[in-house]
């Protein structure tokens, strides 16, 4: 088992394997997203309360999900890197952070655009999910700023790993406190996104979209990790041999 993990985590092996995996993620990812986009935009019935504006959740919910998921991926791989000193997992954490920030940004933008016709305002502080996403974006910024401030890669890896772990402990507490904070607010009655009783014709495209986003995200992450691994291993023999033989 350990041998297998070490072989998998060895940079040259991972570098080659990742390139082979990417198409296997991109193709099903694109198919799922294409189906979900068509079904979500044209097949699913309009929401009786929100009309066709509810279709924004087909991109909002998956990006919000990915923004949370990416922080967990980042924190877990940073923790693995810190404890078991696996270099590859630090590369994964470094590659995940900007992607997480981008998807958090997307979730914020789509949430805000959804809010305009629903609440009549681009930003509603009373909505705990938007506020949580905003704090999430700041957490990503902090992580990337710390990484950017340290020149030495090894030191940057370890320092940012400590921050990611402390952040991971705090993420659920932040969500809880923001929920509590907005529950006190007796503002205008807001239309809730989604809702528990969702028609299956609405739900299936959403699930397909979440799955499709995850596949495409996996492909993006692997690409970024490959670039990161190549940079970190730039002085090694295997990279030199690979470049000399013209491989990518």
């Amino acid at each position: 088992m350990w041998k297998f993990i070490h072989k998998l985590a060895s940079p040259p092996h991972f570098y080659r394997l990742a390139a082979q995996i990417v198409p296997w993620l991109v193709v099903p990812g694109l198919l799922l997203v294409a189906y979900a986009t068509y079904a979500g935009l044209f097949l699913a019935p309009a929401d009786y309360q929100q009309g066709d504006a509810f279709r924004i959740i087909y991109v909002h919910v998956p990006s919000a999900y990915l923004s949370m998921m990416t922080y967990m991926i980042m924190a877990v791989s940073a923790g693995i890197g810190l404890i078991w000193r696996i270099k590859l997992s630090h590369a994964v954490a470094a590659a995940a952070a900007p992607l997480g920030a981008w998807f958090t940004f997307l979730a914020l933008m789509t949430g805000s655009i959804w809010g305009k016709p629903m609440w009549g305002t681009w930003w509603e502080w009373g909505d705990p999910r938007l506020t949580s996403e905003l704090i999430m974006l700041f957490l990503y910024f902090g992580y990337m700023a710390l990484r950017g401030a340290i020149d030495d890669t090894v030191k940057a890896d370890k320092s940012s790993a400590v921050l990611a772990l402390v952040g991971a402990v705090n993420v659920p507490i932040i969500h809880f406190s923001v929920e509590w904070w907005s529950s006190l607010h007796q503002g205008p009655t807001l239309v809730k996104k989604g809702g528990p009783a969702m028609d299956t014709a609405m739900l299936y495209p959403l699930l397909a979209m979440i799955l499709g986003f995850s596949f495409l995200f996996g492909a993006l992450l692997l690409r970024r990790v490959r670039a990161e691994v190549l940079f970190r291993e730039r002085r090694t023999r295997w990279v030199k041999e690979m470049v000399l033989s013209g491989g990518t």
Partner: protein
Amino acid sequence: MTDNDESLGIFAGTLGVARRDLLLAWKRPGDILNPLFFFAMVATLFPLAVGPSPEQLEFSGPAVLWVAALLAMLLSLNSLFLSDFEDGSLDQMLVSPLPLSALALGKTLAHWLTSGLPLVLVSPVVAITFRMPFSVTGILMLTLLLGTISLSLLGSIGAALTVGLHRGTALLSLLILPLAMPVLIFGARTVSLVAAGDGVAGGLYFLGAYAVLVLSFAPFATAAALRISNE
């Protein structure tokens, strides 16, 4: 050495570091006073910006005081490990036989005593200018007392991560502020709720529980960060 002696030694180490920092702070009172002046000045900015309307000041008082306290805590955090880093005391702590987390806890304790506690004691004076009733002021002090403990502990992690980076307070704020938001939410909202005549218990329990949670991991995270920063 028995286990008992050992734990006594660790305890003495924590207190020793704290006592040393307190002595240093006593000799340079500016380090304690500057954040307090900053706190008072930020609290002054709001009435000047908002206008002197009594209802508005009464309404925004808890929020202003809490935000000002949070910023004042941040201001003092930057120097937490800086002088030790520059004069080499930090290297001594790293090679000390005592666990680094215990020494880091001592530093944090001294930081709280020199920046958190003075803020708690000064806050009633500022609160009066916001027309805060005495009963609410008591709750404000209680939330600040519990909240600043968490802020000192969280802040020590950030200070340890950024020591020696010479990036100043901006980077430290970027790291610490998102983590500090639960403390701000519960601290400020509890005081507002009391001012509006609601119950307080929930917010105070949260602040207490959060302080205990942070206390359970912050010294270890700070110690790890200090080791990494000094490699």
